[in-house]
């Protein structure tokens, strides 16, 4: 097979963030492949949506503040209706 290009270092937080966005921000599960690259636009959009809702700086990136909030205990009901 052609080389898939440099294998990117898997970000250990990706699983957690993906779960969070699926649970609370309606990220569709088929987006799994999308998650290989956190800079793919659907994911960035969802991260921005989450940051906006939770009152964080909207960077579209998994900065420390965002990761801190994602780890906090919370209600299991989604933040966007679905």
């Amino acid at each position, binding site marked *: 097979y052609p080389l898939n290009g440099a294998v990117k270092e898997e970000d250990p937080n990706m699983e957690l963030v993906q779960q969070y966005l699926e*649970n*609370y921000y309606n990220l569709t599960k088929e987006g799994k492949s999308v998650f290989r690259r956190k800079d793919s636009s659907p994911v960035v959009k969802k991260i921005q949506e989450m940051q*906006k*809702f*939770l*009152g964080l700086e909207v960077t579209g990136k998994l900065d420390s503040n965002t990761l801190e*909030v994602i*780890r*906090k*205990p*919370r*209600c*299991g*009901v*989604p*933040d966007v*209706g*679905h």
Partner: protein
Amino acid sequence: FSTFPGTPKWTKTHLTYRIVNYTPDLPRDAVDAAIEKALKVWEEVTPLTFSRKHEGEADIMISFAVKEHGDFYPFDGPGYSLAHAYPPGPGLYGDVHFDDDEKWTESASGTNLFLVAAHELGHSLGLLHSANPEALMYPVYNTFTDLARFRLSQDDVDGIQSLYGPPPTSPGTSVVPTEPIPPASGIPAKCDPALSFDAISTLRGEILFFKNRYFWRRSHWSREPGFHLISSFWPSLPSNLDAAYEVNSKDTVFIFKGNKFWAVRGNEVQAGYPKDIHTLGFPSTIRKIDAAISDKEKKKTYFFVEDKYWRFDESSQSMERGFPRRIVDDFPGVEPKVDAVLEAFGFLYFFSGSSQFEFDPNAKRVTHIFKSNSWLLC
């Protein structure tokens, strides 16, 4: 604030709820009290009323569960998701599920059941999450919420009133309680000359004056006494108490109502309470006590019942022989029945109705008579 897609809401104002099971983390009555208090938060700003069912189907079924529990929304172990609830509707809708892998508490440690229940019940009534970090309906659990001063934010009130309107008594304005309070009729006025107290106790240097569901709190560092709901500090305690006293050596306040008594240490109700007052040595003819005070020097506690009093030895933990004695024989000038007793400045202050008798235990006589509420700086 936000509501669920399609804005589901209850079409009736009287709703039923049932606590289906309990967490092993708390006594049952603490769970009952936390849920009741959480419902009251929403009751006070809407026309909604709630009544409890103990069997069968209720509008809001409340349960504790772990991991997969039959609704395709499995819980995730300790932390992260604490609980979830469903919008108004039949069957599963309206129900509240708590993740029992959390450590549920009555205080600020662990996960406070009242706080999460109030949030989840917001969902059961039709609110979705709020983006306002001050709002109860903000999705992330705020470990620093001051439980003693818990209040709905304007955002919460606007949200729930967008679904159900204001409570029938308010003039249509949006009610934002400065703290969760019942209709005005139930609030005692501290400078009412007829004010009497249910119970009075010291607590770690402060003095607590209990009345109905409330208490005033006199402390050295604030001139104005604080005014609080008993339930905002001790959700599992009843209101309309009979007596209270502090045993300094145990850093514990004992609180009496009817034939039961509780032990509290700071905010924490001690495990194993309430106990029956007869375990202290009262005869079965005694149904309740009127007042109590503990003398830290002598290590004796005095219980006042109608026109008599008992003396309890804190060292041997037993009621002393030769009691009860008549109050007037040993405290001449103090008229039964005694509502509460306070010791300060070497005097005993006996409260009876709106009067307070200052008794000098050395001279064995009443030296002054004041209004009961003189301690509240009226």
